[in-house]
């Protein structure tokens, strides 16, 4: 029998980024016993990296903004396959969630009359992002962390969850280990909130850290939940590309919001060449107007650099492919040019984009106030995830909730910048609230000891294989998977390549089943990487299968063999789940019809 320590809580939250912390605060406020387990130390989750801001239609800078406009922008950005109820709740509740953060100590930049300042961002019609320079994520996670530690929550840092445990149909606990000592832990809970973030580590070029191995996606899938929108992976258009060691690190969209422009090797602002029809009415058709927009002219339309991320990323790929790229295979992002327009431009850039200035100065020897940056697309965000009820965030498994990036619905085929932080707050809160309610109405279930033993045994096998002189190390398998996904299921997809990807995944799965690691269980990075492979392979397969099923191009999903959007057959949701045979099952569902009220809003904002 496996040795482990048992913990009992009402609500267990897996993940300590924005969604997990917000859920924990809400659940504990409801008076239940809450634990948060996280793979990293508190305050290090990916939320800390968010730069641009939190989208919330407060209308502080432009009073024409309101939840309806935000709702319509989110739906347009998501190509109308979003869960419209989630998009509505998100737009309606985000302002209150931002003000709440302020009440907990967050300090945002201010308007002249002392209110929260809001900035422009891609796909948002009006200045909408509450921000602190370009370190909004740090402000948000620190505020939630510093508030959360006084709420009686049991924080268990540096723990990995390996399996969700069920009793009948409902979830009753989770099994995993602490990374520090490698000892097993069993968390019993009446409700579990997955807040594990994304899947970026399935790709070679990514802005995501080691943590983002699709844990929540995979845990939910293997527990029998349904996942949706898995074909929609967001490739952020501007990641660093040079030097190689920094490839993938994010360059905030805020650079373009402050007037930064994209140019190809011929010095041309190529984004003017390709403005999609549904954005033409609200996009500037000349440089002058675009500049005025970034400087706050309410009558100017936004420059095409601020079109949605999926579109900008594809335009960059096209420029590179057609031979107009920069020396290291990207394009130029230039903010230094604003010195032609502004006195003290260098100081202005350093004040508005301090971390970008330091990032390029320190990591690439580039002074962004003087010269352009070289940028290219980087795997950034997973639109797809656990299919949840819009109000409660509960999956089809009673007691299992998902919020933030590992949940799905709000963003549809493409997420707008700034809608992630607000997503974490709005649906983190809802998940916490409804998980607490669920816990109050249900008793603890019983744990299947055989299942626990089997997981524990599986987790320790890599050591046994190493001792037997068998198997291979985890890092090469992980790298091969990342390269394969980048090449075969990346920004531009094709059926033959994705079928090849499925074969490759099957081969990698065989290798992963034989992974071996030396050493002991104490803080063993190799062991951690070996165990993460299971989740990475699961999400890679689900992404590929969903992407194969969507025979059209929409948002983050672009098919070379089906380059057009198909509004007849495409307005559907692709649902994946684990079949009885243990293989992924893919079904297509019509998207529920939008209530007349919401339809009307979209028609008005066209």
């Amino acid at each position, binding site marked *: 029998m496996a040795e482990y320590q048992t913990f009992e809580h009402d609500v267990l939250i897996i993940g300590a980024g924005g969604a997990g912390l917000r859920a924990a605060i809400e659940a504990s406020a409801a008076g239940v016993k809450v634990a948060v387990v996280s793979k990293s130390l508190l305050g290090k989750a990916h939320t800390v*990296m968010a730069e641009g801001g939190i989208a919330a239609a407060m209308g502080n800078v432009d009073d024409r903004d309101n939840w309806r406009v935000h709702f319509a922008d989110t739906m347009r950005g998501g190509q109308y396959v979003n869960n419209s109820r989630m998009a509505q709740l998100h737009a309606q509740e985000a302002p209150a969630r931002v003000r709440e953060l302020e009440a907990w*100590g967050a300090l*945002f930049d201010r308007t002249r009359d002392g209110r929260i300042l809001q900035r422009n961002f891609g796909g948002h019609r009006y200045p909408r992002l509450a921000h602190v320079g370009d370190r909004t994520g740090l402000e948000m996670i620190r505020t939630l962390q510093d508030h959360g530690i006084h709420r009686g929550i049991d924080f268990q840092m540096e723990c990995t969850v390996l399996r969700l445990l069920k009793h009948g149909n409902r979830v009753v606990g989770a099994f995993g280990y602490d990374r520090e000592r490698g000892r097993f832990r069993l968390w019993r809970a009446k409700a579990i909130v997955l807040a594990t973030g994304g899947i970026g580590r399935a790709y070679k070029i990514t802005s995501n850290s080691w943590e983002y191995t699709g844990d929540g996606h995979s845990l939910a899938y293997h527990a029998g939940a349904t996942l949706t929108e898995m074909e929609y992976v967001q490739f952020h258009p501007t990641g660093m590309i040079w030097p190689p060691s920094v490839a993938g690190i994010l360059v905030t969209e805020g650079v373009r919001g402050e007037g930064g422009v994209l140019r190809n090797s011929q010095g041309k602002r190529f984004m003017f060449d390709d403005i999609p029809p549904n954005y033409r009415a609200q996009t500037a058709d000349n440089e002058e107007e675009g500049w005025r927009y970034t400087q706050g002219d309410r009558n100017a339309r936004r420059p095409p650099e601020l079109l949605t991320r999926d579109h900008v990323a594809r335009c960059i790929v096209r420029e590179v492919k057609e031979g107009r790229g920069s020396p290291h295979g990207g394009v130029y992002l230039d903010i230094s040019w604003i010195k032609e327009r502004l006195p003290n431009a260098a100081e202005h850039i350093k004040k508005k984009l301090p971390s970008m200035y330091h990032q390029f100065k320190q*990591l690439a020897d580039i002074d962004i106030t003087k010269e352009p940056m070289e940028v290219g697309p980087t795997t950034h965000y997973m639109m797809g995830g656990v299919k949840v009820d819009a109000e409660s965030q509960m999956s089809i498994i009673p007691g299992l909730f998902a919020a933030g990036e590992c949940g799905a619905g709000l963003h549809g085929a493409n997420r707008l910048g700034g809608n992630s932080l607000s997503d974490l707050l709005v649906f983190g809160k809802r998940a916490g609230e409804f998980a607490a309610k669920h816990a109050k109405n249900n008793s603890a279930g019983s744990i299947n000891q055989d299942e626990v033993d089997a997981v524990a045994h599986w987790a320790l096998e890599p050591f046994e294989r190493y001792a037997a002189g068998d198997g291979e190390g985890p890092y090469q398998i992980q790298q091969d998977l990342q390269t394969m996904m980048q090449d075969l299921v990346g920004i531009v997809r094709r059926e033959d390549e994705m079928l090849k990807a499925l074969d490759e995944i099957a081969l990698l799965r065989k290798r992963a089943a034989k992974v071996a690691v030396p050493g002991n269980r104490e803080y063993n990075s190799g062991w951690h990487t070996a165990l993460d492979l299971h989740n990475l392979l699961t999400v890679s397969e689900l992404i590929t299968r969903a992407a194969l099923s969507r025979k059209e191009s929409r948002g983050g999903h672009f098919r070379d063999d089906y380059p057009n959007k198909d509004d007849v057959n495409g307005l559907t949701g692709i649902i994946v789940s684990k079949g009885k045979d243990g293989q992924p099952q893919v079904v297509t569902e019509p998207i529920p019809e939008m209530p007349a009220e919401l339809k009307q809003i979209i028609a008005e904002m066209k």
Partner: protein
Amino acid sequence: MSEQTASKRRVLFRIWRGDTNRGALEDYATDITPGMVVLDAVHRIQAEHATDLAARWNCKAGKCGSCSAEINGSPRLMCMTRLNTLPLDQPITVEPMKTFPRIKDLVTDVSWNYRVKQRIKEFKPRKPDEKDGTWRMAQEDVDRVQEFRKCIECFLCQDVCHVLRDHHMHEEFIGPRFFVYVAGLQLHPLDSEDRIDELKEANGIGYCNITKCCTKVCPEEITITDNAIIPLKERVVDRHFDPLKKLFRIFQK
């Protein structure tokens, strides 16, 4: 573009390997390519030579403060230390932070920091300024405190502080990170809590003898000593040692 053209070269890294009880520096040679940082080399060594080498990291862009270590003896973030800034003809030593108990290899037990923070009185806002429950603040008041809120909790300042590193006064002294935290709260335009007494009593601000070592290692370039610690010390002195104020307080009682 200021591209580096230096080609691949082999460099020797001397990394501390061990656990809570014992350990030693071990040598690993690996190839480095232009633009690499120390963290890249550590990852390469993990993949090539030492699968089980323990090291924390997350963002790889100086924003999360996870990968703190002592590189050639100086406390730095591994992800922000470019190899071309180090002498590559000598071995590069990478050691864990020394102020905290060792766990394994480059990973230390920093949980003390989290316990300390929990002891400090939390943010308490004044009553909202407006009927809708919101506040009004001037940008300049917000700007004044942002320096302290930039902190990424890498704990390098704690690592280098003599009071903690050499004198192990973890029970009596909260360290530079948390003076910055308290300064951030005290200067917060909305905060209405009083933390001056606890600074003197429980937090031991008096032990700091302003050698500014913390300021020198801060990757966020927070002027810890001058802007956070000294003003806090002045507040403590004003309240507890100013004879006029002391007299005034006696009469008040």
